[in-house]
């Protein structure tokens, strides 16, 4: 039981980092990406390869995963600068679909469908931190750092600039905001953090394959952010807990056959997204729209 809880807590922490990083894009910058699992994946593959080929240092893996994901985020920033709204959603979908094919075809980098197996136990400065509780503590520290950084940035001028662009891009421009640069920066930051989450995920699973980085995963993370509440610090975490506990909770219900749990889970979060948008667009943890 303890092992199960530790396991769940670590997974929730990793997804907490991922959801918080997507919230930076969706919630604060208004950049509606459905390709977030791609950057999660890039981080995971990078971290895994680094650990297998060179050294299983978790900090180095996070750094490498983050840097590579951040650099490749230009693939996403480019369309974000050219077009907006509907078009950008389409572009990010296109990126997601292309990336899944690349992930499953580039055998030498990603191991294809079989994935990368035998990721060594994580160490930190040569010290073994593979003990579940120790690894959880490390992940929590990373999450804490990420949340602190996001909080500081979003309360400062960078956050104001992004939110200004989100609320009215043309007005932001008219008041001297360098919109393309700010958007690129936001995309880069969000994707870097997704890469960090990916590197942690690789160590947690000790095995990565393309199944974890598909469109479904992107949608799941999106649902976490939206259901929890965009543009708040706590929102994505609430969403992560709800959606990760859902399958566990469903498995206690005797009338749902185990094979259907996945589908029932999807049914619930799909329905929740629709209902929330109709009745409470700001999400569960968001401020309700107090219109006059």
């Amino acid at each position, binding site marked *: 039981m303890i092992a199960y809880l530790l396991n769940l807590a670590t997974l929730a922490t990793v997804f907490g980092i991922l959801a918080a990083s997507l919230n930076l894009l969706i919630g604060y910058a208004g950049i509606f990406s459905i390709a977030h699992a791609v950057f999660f994946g890039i981080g995971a593959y990078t971290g895994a390869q680094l650990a297998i080929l060179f050294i299983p240092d978790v900090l180095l893996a996070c750094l490498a995963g983050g840097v590579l994901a951040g650099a490749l985020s230009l693939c996403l920033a480019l369309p974000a600068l050219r077009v907006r709204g509907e078009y950008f*959603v389409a572009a990010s979908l296109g990126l997601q679909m292309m990336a899944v094919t690349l992930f499953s075809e580039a055998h030498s980098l990603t191991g294809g469908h079989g994935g990368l197996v035998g990721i060594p136990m994580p160490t930190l400065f040569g010290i073994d931190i593979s003990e579940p509780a120790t690894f959880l503590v490390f992940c929590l520290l990373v999450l804490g750092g990420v949340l602190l950084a996001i909080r500081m940035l979003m309360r400062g001028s960078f956050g104001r600039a992004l939110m200004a662009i989100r609320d009215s891009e043309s007005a932001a421009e008219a008041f001297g905001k360098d919109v393309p640069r700010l958007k690129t920066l936001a995309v880069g930051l969000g994707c870097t953090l997704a890469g960090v989450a990916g590197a942690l995920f690789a160590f947690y699973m000790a095995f990565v394959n393309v199944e974890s980085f598909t469109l479904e995963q992107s949608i799941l993370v999106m649902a976490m952010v939206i259901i929890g509440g965009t543009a708040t610090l706590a929102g994505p975490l609430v969403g992560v807990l709800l959606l990760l506990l859902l399958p566990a909770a469903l498995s206690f219900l005797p009338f749902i056959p185990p094979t259907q749990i996945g589908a029932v889970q999807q049914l619930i979060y799909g329905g929740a997204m629709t209902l929330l948008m109709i009745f409470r667009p700001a999400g569960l943890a968001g401020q309700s729209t107090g219109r006059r």
Partner: protein
Amino acid sequence: MLFLQLLFNGIQTGAIYALTAAGFALIFGATRIFHVAHGASFALAGYAFLMCSQAGLPWPVGCLAALAVAVAFGLGMDAFIYRPIQRHEGSFFTVFVAAFGMTIVVQSLIEIGFGRGFAVVPSALTMAKEVMPGLYLANIFWVAVGVAVVLFAIVGLFLERTRAGIGLRALSENPELLRAYGLSSRKLSALAFGLGSALTVPGAVLTAVTSGLQPAISAQVMLISLASAVVGGIGSLRGAALAGLLLGVVENLVISVLDTQWSSAAGFVVLFIFILFKPSGLFGQAVTR
């Protein structure tokens, strides 16, 4: 000969994509709603047809059932999801997420009802014959192309000649004008959803008898419709249809050079290139900032 075979396969796929994408473009052009649950209409129509034929009903009944289900779903989305949202805020984001949520709901319901696997309705029309040395075509090819051509002619005439059709085209551009002509924008938007959703039916039925249905098809169709609408120029019916055809052909021709795994990605490479270099699409007005 492989090239020719793939080209014909591509045209068959493309005809289905074109019809579906045209429905999406029609809805977007008239209502400015990015109806991402369009793929769910397609899936529901397909499975309705599947249920009817499994129950031993003749195929026209199945088609009618599919039509009824698709139209009802489209109208329901308009009335119960989009309209309430647009009443209070109606940002693009909110509408998109709500529709996306419904797509997930439909997909999981189908999964619960029919399982995850492929389901095909057997049909004599899919028996392939060798029409030229090395080139195999089934009668279904001519059905697909024929249905697409006839339906495009009908929809085109409807939009050009009838009052309601002209109203549909003006709806997004100048709602006030419509009132002057005594047309109701509510009814027109319902018409757009009904007609647009109906256009998914031929594709759904044809897919059910050829490559088969699976729960995830709603997401695939949504992606194709989205891609076609963007490549064709958002809101342009002609553009979406042509782009749908193009994507179908590209997907199949890619197989002649690369592995089959690349075929679905190829369409999105096309989409990505268009967004980067010609975001207005084939027939759209300029949309860059």
